[in-house]
């Protein structure tokens, strides 16, 4: 087997509300898992999905601890050597199409209006699916590409009529009097996954297992001491305890990829292709998913 690395690099992403990851780091589970092997763990912050798969492609990252479903599929389909080894979260209620208090009050009312949000992401998929459910297409709205912070700012500044938002940006809009037109609940099934560099998985399955072990410990802590976990997460994300408690029930952190998850990933790929964002498709189960050999 190839020599053990001196260190491994795992991305650290707190937003929108990645409680298990926050707990895992705060409680030092990762360090504990790798210290016996004399392996240092680095947890660089790389929030953008595209940046994460670019870093994986560059060999700079071994494990992407939280990667959006769209990013995982886009990256893999375009040749990035990554494998999905588990689910991180599912949170349809955390993703929403929002507007100001005086904004359009239904999906239908969005026709011809300006909507901002990050293109090529789960939120893009949400908008497309929500429109499709009302027999509309993305082309029926004026869809502008912008990241969450900009979309939030543009919405509050009255520059756009609606925005697709999540996490803290959604809370901020709510706090400013904004409304939710719809969440993803019942519309799409956004999920995030745990992804690893393919070569890393092939060479060091034992290390990947250790990582998953640490992840499992964090989940156990969430189950056993939810209040403590919430406090840790709220502090790390500088959220008020109330906001944290609001968001808590929106998330399902179970790590196993279910048949439903698989269907959702396939729907996600379908959306990407139909929206013209993906030219090549992959076999989700064979090309993307991987189990960690014992």
């Amino acid at each position, binding site marked *: 087997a190839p020599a053990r690395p001196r260190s491994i690099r795992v991305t650290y992403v707190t937003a929108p509300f990645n409680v298990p990851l926050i707990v895992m780091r705060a409680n030092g589970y990762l360090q504990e898992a790798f210290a016996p092997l004399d392996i240092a763990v680095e947890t660089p912050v790389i929030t953008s*999905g*595209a940046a994460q*798969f*670019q870093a994986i*492609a560059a060999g700079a990252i071994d494990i992407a601890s939280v990667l959006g479903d769209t990013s995982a599929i*886009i*990256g893999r*389909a*375009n*040749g*990035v050597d990554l494998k999905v080894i588990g689910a991180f979260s599912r949170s349809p209620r955390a993703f929403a199409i929002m507007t100001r208090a005086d904004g359009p009050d239904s999906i239908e009312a969005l026709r011809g209006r300006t909507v*901002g949000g990050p*293109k*090529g992401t789960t939120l893009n998929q949400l908008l497309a699916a929500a429109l499709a459910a009302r027999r509309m297409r993305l082309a029926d709205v004026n869809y*502008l*590409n*912008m*990241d969450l*912070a*900009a979309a939030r*700012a*543009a919405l509050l*500044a009255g*520059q*756009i009529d609606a925005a697709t938002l999540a996490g803290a940006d959604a809370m901020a809009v709510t706090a400013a009097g904004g409304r939710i037109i719809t969440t993803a609940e019942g519309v799409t099934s956004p999920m995030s996954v745990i992804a690893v560099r393919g070569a890393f998985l092939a060479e060091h399955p034992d290390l990947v297992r250790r990582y998953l072990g640490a992840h499992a410990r964090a989940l156990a802590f969430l189950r056993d001491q939810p209040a403590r976990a919430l406090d840790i997460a709220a502090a790390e994300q500088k959220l008020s305890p109330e906001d944290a408690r609001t968001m808590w029930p929106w998330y399902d952190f179970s790590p196993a990829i279910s048949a439903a998850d698989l269907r959702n990933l396939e729907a996600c790929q379908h959306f990407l292709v139909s929206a013209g*964002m*993906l030219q090549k498709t992959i076999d989700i189960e064979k090309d993307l998913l991987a189990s960690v050999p014992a």
Partner: protein
Amino acid sequence: MLADGTLVRHTAVSLARAMAGFLLAVMVALPLAVLLSLAPRPRRLLEPLLEFLRQIPPLALIPLLVLWLGIGEAQKLGVVALTCFFPVFLGTLGGLAQVDRKLVEVGRVCGLAQSALVSRIILPAAMPSIVTGLRISLGFSWRALVGAELIAASEGLGYLIVDAQNMARTDVVLVGVVVIGLLGMLVDRLTRMALHRAMPWLPRDGGADA
């Protein structure tokens, strides 16, 4: 991309944005630098503000720019202009400070008004430094495109690049990079040629040739 004309469209849009933002910056920076170099009092008031602004990353200001300028063309030009402003401004200030006072005195004994001193002596004498500032800004007008087209853009080479990055299309990123590089070189060369035609006495950037 070439075949269906998308690349041409993205290029045209970005060229227009880069040039408009650049010209906007020049049209404010150049007169302002001249004005401030002649008027110590307004200078003392304005300079700290400008010095402060000069350090701020335009990416940090994007939410603010969205607030002030919206998400349309104005915001994109704003990002480009904000990046291009200071090289021209500092280049001009530096050039003005270097102007040979002996030549200015020639104008003063000829009874030239302040404005004539500026147009007939100070600006021509400061021109080499101003040109350096212009060239730095011109380069940055292209560099600013990605930042400018990060938000609410659906066209432009910056948008093309960011979009391709998000879509893991390294080949497209590369095309965008190459087009920006070549186009920037071309514009730089044309600008220099035009400036040298208009002002044949300018040093050719040929180095000190010692």
